[in-house]
């Protein structure tokens, strides 16, 4: 077979459709129609990401309100009823309407481009998945005005994002708050499962000529792992929502403790979904790091086979750790010991990944562009998040830490410090590909530094109220516990992060109209998506690419020292 990546056909540029966007687009209505009926993976990816960014702002606003309420002990900025709705909606939104859609959005956009395909395996399923997820979001937020809404605080769910039974049963949650929550999650789950099937089929069936599984970039590898996790994890969630609705409307007694049901059953179901879900969210973040860190260190990823093995290993191990959320629920000591060990084992593959990133940087020539700044901050924060994770896996210590602000700080370290930071890195890295324009670097630096300062003020300090006995999900606290000052620092940090995100929003809009022209390959990168124009045409590649190594563009740029010679 050929040892040269990408056929270098003379005159290929002439084949590219260069009609200016304004002329192609048609009237306003036609354009809107085009976006609604589209089955193009890139447009659906953009829809997913924009939809998630809108909800990021909404859930961020909820977080700011939570932090205002907790600024003073016995504050009455919002009522307890409202506060409980705020943190429930904040959690549910961030996981189901921000995290999953934005990661699926990037997956949609990038996976076909990176494996040299022209679209996803099932374009119509793709569109269906997006629209049903969008419907789930609208349904969940309709709860604020639906049901008995518009009077008082509406029907928004107020049972915390893990919605422990039997609080969700009719006896304790009359009205429709829980129904909105359950039905919205079922709908969003259907969308997630559709997308997961699609990504798996795409990765395994649509790779271009020459791209064996072991020549595939790491991003599609991690997305395939994530998608398998979604298939395994989201199904129990959907099942337990169905059981809950049966309890509420058809007289079932799965979780109805007053009729002999089990509260622990719900906890098991939810966390069998809930813990793999963390890895569903964090593996794509790893995927972004796997692409961005090598390019800005100017080195190939260190230990590619180990990285693949570690990612798939995380996928498997993460299915056996769920009950570490339940160390205080009254398991036997052997049960506690088992889940302590299985949880600790996750740190082996994640450790391998961390060290491989470190080794990738080692000996490189690091360029500190905004995507790399976010990635470096991610590395630090990921190490800390991993270590607090080890602390939480120590089941006896977990009896103290569980459900305290220490846990809140830990999982925000993972969700914000690792995942959101890598999402920001990915936005700065791939925005030029998506829009054809660079994001403003100066605003990017402002965004980064404010975000880092705000993040550490908020989430470093947040560990300490937990160690001092402050439980989570409380709308107010006593002034004599020594938590006041700590909470005030946490809140101030939160406000700073809010400003940072607004800068990003401004940058996204501003650069779309005024940004510097990006060209096809602004970062001098090596994977296939950078070989086509920015934004890519609807058909992605003029000619089907053929690859001979993991870094086809490196081979093209360095014919004297191609990767393909070593593989």
């Amino acid at each position: 077979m050929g040892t040269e990546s990408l056929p270098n056909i003379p005159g290929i540029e002439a084949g590219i459709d260069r009609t200016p966007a304004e002329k192609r687009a048609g009237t306003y209505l036609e354009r809107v129609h085009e976006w609604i009926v589209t089955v193009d993976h890139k447009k659906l990816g953009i829809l997913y990401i924009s939809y998630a960014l809108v909800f990021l702002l909404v859930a961020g606003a909820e977080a700011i309100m939570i932090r205002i309420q907790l600024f003073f002990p016995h504050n009455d900025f919002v009522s307890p009823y409202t506060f409980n709705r705020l943190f429930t909606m904040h959690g549910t939104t961030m996981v189901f309407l921000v995290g999953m859609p934005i990661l699926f959005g990037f997956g949609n956009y990038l996976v076909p481009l990176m494996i040299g395909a022209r679209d996803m395996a099932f374009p119509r399923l793709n569109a269906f998945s997006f629209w049903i997820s969008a419907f789930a979001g609208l349904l969940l937020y309709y709860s604020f005005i639906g049901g008995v809404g518009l009077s008082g605080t509406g029907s928004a769910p107020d049972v915390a994002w893990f919605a422990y039974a039997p609080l969700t049963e009719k006896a304790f949650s009359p009205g429709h708050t829980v129904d909105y929550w359950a039905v919205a999650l079922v709908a969003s789950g259907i969308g997630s499962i559709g997308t997961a099937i699609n990504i798996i089929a795409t990765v395994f069936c649509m790779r271009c000529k020459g791209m064996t599984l072991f020549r595939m970039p790491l991003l599609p590898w991690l997305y395939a792992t994530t998608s398998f996790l979604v298939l395994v994890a989201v199904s129990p969630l959907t099942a337990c929502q169905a059981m809950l609705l049966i309890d509420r409307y058809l007289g079932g007694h799965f979780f109805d403790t007053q009729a002999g049901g089990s509260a622990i059953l719900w906890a098991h179901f939810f966390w069998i979904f809930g813990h793999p879900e963390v890895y569903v969210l964090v593996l794509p973040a790893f995927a972004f790091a796997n692409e961005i860190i090598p390019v800005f260190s100017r080195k190939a990823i260190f230990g590619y086979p180990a990285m693949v093995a570690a990612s798939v290993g995380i996928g498997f191990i993460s299915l056996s750790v769920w009950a570490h959320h339940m160390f205080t629920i009254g398991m036997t000591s052997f049960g506690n010991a088992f889940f302590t060990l299985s949880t600790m084992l996750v740190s082996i593959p994640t450790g391998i990944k961390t060290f491989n990133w470190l080794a990738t940087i080692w000996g490189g020539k690091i360029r500190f562009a905004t995507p790399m700044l976010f990635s470096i901050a991610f590395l630090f924060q990921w190490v800390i998040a991993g270590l607090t994770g080890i602390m939480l896996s120590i089941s006896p210590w977990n009896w103290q830490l569980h459900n305290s602000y220490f846990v809140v700080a830990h999982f925000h370290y993972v969700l914000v410090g690792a995942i959101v930071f890598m999402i920001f890195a990915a936005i700065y890295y791939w925005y030029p590909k998506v829009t054809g324009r660079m994001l403003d670097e100066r605003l990017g630096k402002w965004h980064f530094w404010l975000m880092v300062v705000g993040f550490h003020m908020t989430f470093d300090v947040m560990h300490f109220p937990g160690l001092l006995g402050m439980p989570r999900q409380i709308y107010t606290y006593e002034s004599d516990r020594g938590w006041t000052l700590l909470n005030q620092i946490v809140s101030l940090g939160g406000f700073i992060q809010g400003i940072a995100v607004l800068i990003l929003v401004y940058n996204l809009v501003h650069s779309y109209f005024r940004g510097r022209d990006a060209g096809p390959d602004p970062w001098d990168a090596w994977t296939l998506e950078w070989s086509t124009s920015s934004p890519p045409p609807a058909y992605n590649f003029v000619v089907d690419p053929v690859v001979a190594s993991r870094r086809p563009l490196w081979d093209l740029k360095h014919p004297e020292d191609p990767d393909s010679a070593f593989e």
Partner: protein
Amino acid sequence: MKLRAIIDRGWILLGMQLFCCACAWGSPSTSMFQPRSTPAHELKDLSVFVLIICGLIFAGVSGLLVYAIVRFRARKGDTTEPPQVFGSMQIELSWTIIPILIIVVLFLTTSRVLFDVQDAPKPPTALDVIVVGHQFWWEFRYPQYNVVTANELHVPVSSKDAPRPTYMKLTSADVIHSFWVPQLAGKTDLLPNRVNEMWIDPQDPGVYLGQCAQFCGTEHAKMLLRVYVDTPEQFKQWIANQQRIQPELNLQAASAESSPNPGNAGIVQAAMNRTPSNSPPTRSNVAEVSGLEPQEISPRAGQYVFEHQACISCHTVAGTVATGRYGPDLTHLMTRETLASGAALNNQEQLLKWVGDPNQIKPGSLMPAMHLSDRQNQQITAYLMTLK
């Protein structure tokens, strides 16, 4: 560089914060690093060990990272590519095996503490307490003494020479709650349809604070918890007092004064005897009309109102007709320092406010505002003040 400096400064500040918090708020405290009971001690020692290991790992990894970022930054004008390295089996093996060894150490240490604390055999001298979680308060039952109380748990001090640990069986009447007093032990959940167990052996007398640690509904935040560790004598006295029942304050006499034969006729007569009022009937004066209420503000009158309103469907006052089980046992209400599960101090002013409308103190509390008249509220408060 800058990032590192900022993070470093942050950590130093945080260390100072923690130090201040640990020192300035001595007692009562909710810090898990000031243990006063064996389980909490063992957990703290384990946590310090784990903290040290994690601290060393963090120092090592972040040190390498900082070094790499500074050492391998791109120099100005250098456009060449660095040498491409694709990996090394030996290095991969080393950072697989070393973490495995660390995990073996951590796991074995953890298991020892885990089995020590969770499976500790119960000595015959142990005190039994049954803890029942309610939305949003705690019920404590002492089966060995036939005592029931609420929100403020009293346990005896336990010393090496005279061990008297407290073994608790925990369950819930409605949704999941969690019993957490950081200075005494880790938390244990209270689940409906299930009994969990935990134990404490506090070594110093005093008050220990905690609160519900599992979101249980609207007022989860104000489901506070106080544990009083008494000396053996104090505890004996406390138990003896709790076992006392409350007298009926000559209830029949109170009604007999206005009507010797309380029946329909009596009620009608009482209603007719009432001074006609110009104000339209409100809920409170309807309540007054329906009963034969003594007008004076006294404990005796208060008991009459208490026992003729819905109060007794939920509350118990041992020795009287009040035998409700849904709300806290009020038999010795005034021996408790706080009201509404720690949401307010237990004094006349707060009691009156609470009886009038619990939502003023604890919005979302399951005790409804009874819409009684001001006088009735004062009468009930006067009665409650006698429940010592």
